[in-house]
Structures are given as C-alpha cells and as structure tokens.
C-alpha cells in the first residue's frame, strides 16, 4: 500500500469513528430519542362554586338578665358556622354579643347576654371561610329591660340605648310585630324604667 491510499484509509476510519462516537453519545444522553416524553396534552375544566343557604326561620326571645335567646333552623348543607347580628330600630347591624359571637356548624341557638336596654332585632346568616350567606328574615323586635314596645317607642329610639318616654303616656297602639319583653321588666313609661344616661330636655318627668 502506498502512502496516499493509506492516508485515505486512515481518514475514513477516523471519520467513521467520529460520527459513530457522536451518535453514540447523543443516544446515550437521550437526545436522539427526545420525543419519548411530551407535554402535548392541554385542556381545561370548569368548576362551579356553591352558595351558602339561608336559615329558613329565626326567632328571638327575651330572657332574664337582659339576655336574648336566638334560635334558627339549620342550613343544609351545613356551613362552617353562623353569624348572628342585631340592631336597634333605626340602627345599623352589628355583631351580637359574646354568647352569639360565632356559633359553630352544629349550633341552632345561642344566647346574647348583657344586651343593652332597648328594642332589638336579630338576624342570622350562614358563614364559611370568608363567605357569608344571605341572612334570614329579621326577627320580631325584642324589648330588653322594659324598653318601649310600640311604634312610638321604636321611633324615639335614638340608636344609642336611650329611650325617651312619650310626652303623653298613651297606651301602646298597633305594634308592628309582637314584642317580647324581658320578664320582670315594666313597660315604659314608669318609675322603674332604666336610668337614662342623657335624657333629652323634652323628656317629661316620670
């Protein structure tokens, strides 16, 4: 073999070796079969959010010691708990006191203790996480500690616990809903009415 063909032969061997080695390396690292795994499938789904139910019925009953017992019908499916709120005739809704602060899922009643004197309305809504359901219909008014139980009395309620007595002590007429008076309390106006913190100037002597 002369020198030239020998060099060509060596070159062929080197070329074959280089190509083969490169291919083998690629195969070993998997790049030659890169289609084996693929993120090809894409899609989407739709999820519906539920809603919280409304307690069908809610009632509030005055209890001794300026307390009010609130009872409601449980919501189905059961929520995480309930929120009980109260308000005066012309006031804004506020959270009920500690006894009704956060009734649990299994609760259907609570007792709002140490309720300030006055006439109160209650309502209850289901809650779950940050969700709050539509509240049930407002209860009939509950009079605590002898607060006025008629329309005139409600209208005179200034929203801060003060209940000036009517200028003419006429009997209660046409109540909107049947009031509940705390046992032992005496309807206003009487001498036993709770002390008024700041009676208006127009309030007559009792």
């Amino acid at each position: 073999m002369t020198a030239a063909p020998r060099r060509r032969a060596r070159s062929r061997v080197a070329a074959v070796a280089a190509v083969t080695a490169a291919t083998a390396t690629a195969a070993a690292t998997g790049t030659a079969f890169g289609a084996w795994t693929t993120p090809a499938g894409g899609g989407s789904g739709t999820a519906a959010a539920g809603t919280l139910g409304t307690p069908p019925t809610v009632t509030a009953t005055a209890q001794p010691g300026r307390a009010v017992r609130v009872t409601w019908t449980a919501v189905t499916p059961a929520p995480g708990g309930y929120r009980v709120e109260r308000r005066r005739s012309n006031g804004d809704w506020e959270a009920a006191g500690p006894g009704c602060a956060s009734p649990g899922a299994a609760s259907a009643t609570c007792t709002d203790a140490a309720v300030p004197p006055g006439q109160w309305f209650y309502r209850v809504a289901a809650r779950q996480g940050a969700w709050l359901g539509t509240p049930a219909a407002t209860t009939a008014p509950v009079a605590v500690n002898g607060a006025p139980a008629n329309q005139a009395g409600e209208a005179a309620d200034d929203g801060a616990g003060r209940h000036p007595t009517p200028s003419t002590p006429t009997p209660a007429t046409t109540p909107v809903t049947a009031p509940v008076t705390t046992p032992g309390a005496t309807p206003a106006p009487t001498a036993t009415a709770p002390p008024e913190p700041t009676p208006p100037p127009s309030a007559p002597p009792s």
Partner: protein
Amino acid sequence: MSLSRTRVTLASGVLLGTLAATAAWAQWFTSGRTTAISQAESISFSVDAVTITGPPLRPGGAGGLRIRLTNHKPFAVRVVMVLADGPVTVDAAHPGCVRTGVSLVSPIYTSWLLAPRQTKEFATSNKVRMTNGSDNGCQGAMFHVPLRATATTA
C-alpha cells in the same frame, strides 16, 4: 491495501456495535422498555375533556378531576403527570371574586395507560381545592381551570 480495508471494516463494526448497544441502553434507561420508537413516531395524545366532579366548591372544600384523553399513535403511552397550566380565572359575572381561592393540586403524578389509538377517561379525587380565603363574591361563580398532561412511551 487489504489490511487497511480490514482495519476500517473492523473499526466500523466495533463502533457500530457500540452505537447499537449504547442506543439500546439509552432507550431502556429513559423509558424502561426495549421497544424502539423513532423520531418520526413521536407521542401524540390530546386532552379531550376535563370535568371537575363533586359538589359545587365551597371554602375549605375540594373537587375531583375527570379527564378524557386520546392516544393518536399506534403504540401505547402512559400519562405520568397532570400540571396546572396557568391561573384559575372566574366568569365575568362575578367581579367581586378577586381572590378565587381555587387551585389545581399540581403536579398530580399519574400512571394512566393509553392503549394504541385509545380514548379513555380517568378520574382522580380532591385535586381542585378552594381555600377559606375565597372572596365572598365568589359564591355561585364559575371557574376556568387550565391544565396540561405529560405522557411517555409505555
């Protein structure tokens, strides 16, 4: 001359043999199978439908996932993973639902086998969740949950 050709042939043979063995090993290493699949036979499957199962979502709750997949190739594939593919969005009728609290558990590791050219439905539970932080305005909303699946040769 004859000696040189012999050497070339030998070298080529050894190297080709090495290539074949290495490629086979590489395939086994990657897929755990010895069936060869060429580049032209790349995997092709599609997610035909996704359904969120179970009762409507509520804070603290979760729903299942039902997915219908189709393998478009004449060889079996295995779906190994389902991933979230973007943020969950809410329908336009609930602008107050800013924090949806809804998310897809991701990744979901699966081992769903699809026979050649098969369409099949798979299900998994409690994979779409709603946290207690979901806004009150999300009540009654509809959520769009994008996802994608990854498959490998079976």
